[in-house]
């Protein structure tokens, strides 16, 4: 087991720089999710940790050792690929035992380790099948089995669930997490799905355009996003972010709409409020907004309401099924103390 330290990592292709000094630590045994929109550099970062991409600047350390110039096979890592990368011409058994065989372990040892891993993953009946005879979920398990037989210091996952259907994805999410608890290994998990990151990780690293936006435990990112990007990216449905002018304990969102503010900030701001933090209140409640309902979507567990007031669009989420329908005028109030405020210029959190 080992800790991973990323220090001031940069990556350039020719003159194009795609990663601009990313630094963070992964503690021994920690499960960290790397999340961000596509093209943010999260997969590149993972591949740099694996040794599949050259490092242009900065260092990657695994277990206290700088591994920039270490071959992938000597980094003591295992990786689960997005398309699983199972060797199509080898059986499940051979796929899982390949790395041990390369390491020159005895046949008995290989057999034993493969059997243990297969048992953990429920793959024992399938050991002699070829990859193409397996379902998507089984292939996914083989890919993980191939990783765990080696007892690596660090597991790397490159969007391993994105090729599975929705129900299986939820199931595998739990399985990977419980496997992590059981093995106690350090894991780095790349995903573009913030729900996956929120549900699985001890800590989340949010990236955008080759930069680290924020790193922290899931709920910290949800409760106190450090900037407008993280605020909008974490949480579903996304946070309402409304431009306005702050001053005198108030924020002015439009000519005839102001909301109270528990902040002394002034100037151009982005006012953020999560849809689930808007509540229906009686007409005339102080600090409330009157808006016209334009969209109502119900999933059964929750009701998503899109409404408009002047040029502003607001989304709200209710779990108690209020009798709201399209065209209604409703009165909404941000729950006190749950709003976020960001500087319009720097996009950074100011309250």
């Amino acid at each position, binding site marked *: 087991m080992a800790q991973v330290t990323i220090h001031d990592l940069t990556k350039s292709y020719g003159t194009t720089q795609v990663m601009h000094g990313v630094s963070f630590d992964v503690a021994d045994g920690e499960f960290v999710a790397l999340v961000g929109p596509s093209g943010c550099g999260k997969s590149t970062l993972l591949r740099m940790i694996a040794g*599949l991409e050259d490092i242009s600047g900065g260092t990657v350390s695994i277990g206290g050792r700088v591994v920039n110039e270490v071959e992938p*096979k000597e980094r003591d890592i295992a*990786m689960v690929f997005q398309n699983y990368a199972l060797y199509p011409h080898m059986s499940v058994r051979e796929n899982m035992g390949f790395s041990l065989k390369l390491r020159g372990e005895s046949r008995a040892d290989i057999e034993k380790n493969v059997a243990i891993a297969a048992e953990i993953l429920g793959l024992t009946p399938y050991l002699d099948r070829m990859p193409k005879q397996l379902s998507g979920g089984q292939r996914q398990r083989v890919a993980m089995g191939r990783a765990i037989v080696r007892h690596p210091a660090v597991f790397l996952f490159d969007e391993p669930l994105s090729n599975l259907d929705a129900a299986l994805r939820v199931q595998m999410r739990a399985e990977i997490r419980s496997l992590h608890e059981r093995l106690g290994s350090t894991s780095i998990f790349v995903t573009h799905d913030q729900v996956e990151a929120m549900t699985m990780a001890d800590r989340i690293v949010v990236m955008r355009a080759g930069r680290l936006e924020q790193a922290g435990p899931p709920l910290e990112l949800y409760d106190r996003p450090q900037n407008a990007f993280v605020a909008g990216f974490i949480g579903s449905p996304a946070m309402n972010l409304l431009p306005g002018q702050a001053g005198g304990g108030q924020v002015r969102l439009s000519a005839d709409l102001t909301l109270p503010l528990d902040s002394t900030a002034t100037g151009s701001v982005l006012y953020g409020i999560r849809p689930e933090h808007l509540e229906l209140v009686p007409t005339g409640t102080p600090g409330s907004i009157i808006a016209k309902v334009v969209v109502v979507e119900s999933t059964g567990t929750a009701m998503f309401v899109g409404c408009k007031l002047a040029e502003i669009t607001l989304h709200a989420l209710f779990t108690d099924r209020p009798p709201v329908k399209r065209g209604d005028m409703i009165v909404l109030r941000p729950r006190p103390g749950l709003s976020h405020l960001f500087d319009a210029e720097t996009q950074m959190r100011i309250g």
Partner: protein
Amino acid sequence: MTPRATKRLATNAALTLGAALLLIWSLGPIYWSLVASLTPPNALISDNLHLWPVTPTWEHYAKLFGATSTSQGNQVQSVWPQFRAALLNSIITSLAATIVTVAIAAVGAWAFVRLKFPGRDALFIAVVATLAVPGFTVLIPLYRLMIAAGLIDTYTGVTLIYVSAFLPLALWLMRSVYQAMPLSLEEAAWIDGASKFYTLLRIVLPLAGPGLVACAILTFLSAWGQFMIPLVFSPSLATKPLTVLIPEFVTRNYVDYGLMNAAGIIAIVPPIILVLFLNRFLVQGLMAGASK
């Protein structure tokens, strides 16, 4: 019958007719040659046209494979020694060229796709560009080079020239095969602890099977059918292949059409076998080789 059904019937009839015409165009001449090879000499030169052998005979084949025979009243010397030598030469040079070409292309194309080395792209473009260079452009200096090296009329010489002629296409083909292969498989093998070369041997080559077969078929067919190269470089029966020997049957004192057709049929047996059993690979290979 409804109009739509009538129309469908007419379409099907047209398609069937078209397919029949296409079959006659493609196979008819070969069939006609087969008929001639099975027709007795005197029936060959009769005025009556028969579309199938009325009194089939193996006599032309027997002549090729050793039987002496009389023709126009004269005892004719057996052509078996020459035919045997040429058949062997064709087989040896084609197989040797195929094995060497596929081996070099299988390894080289992978290096062109997956390894970075100085001059990689320029070298690849230069090699593929030679596909547009007619054989004769290099044949004349090559002739003198081969004489100087003492490689005229040797298996080594002919095989080397075949390889140089068919390698560009083989490289082009294998490169497209490797490009279509997911890189993550090879990355998984590196992380599993395999060296790059071991990855090539254990992961890449086994998966490139169909591509290698296609490549081998195309190379073999090109070598088997070569005429111009052996015409220049194989002056004697030491290396002269069937393609050069068979036309020489014409220029003897008289033309034995039955014998020529029989020899031709023998010469097209290997290609026909390849097409019958491996046409899927062949067509895939041609498609990959022809498209971008």
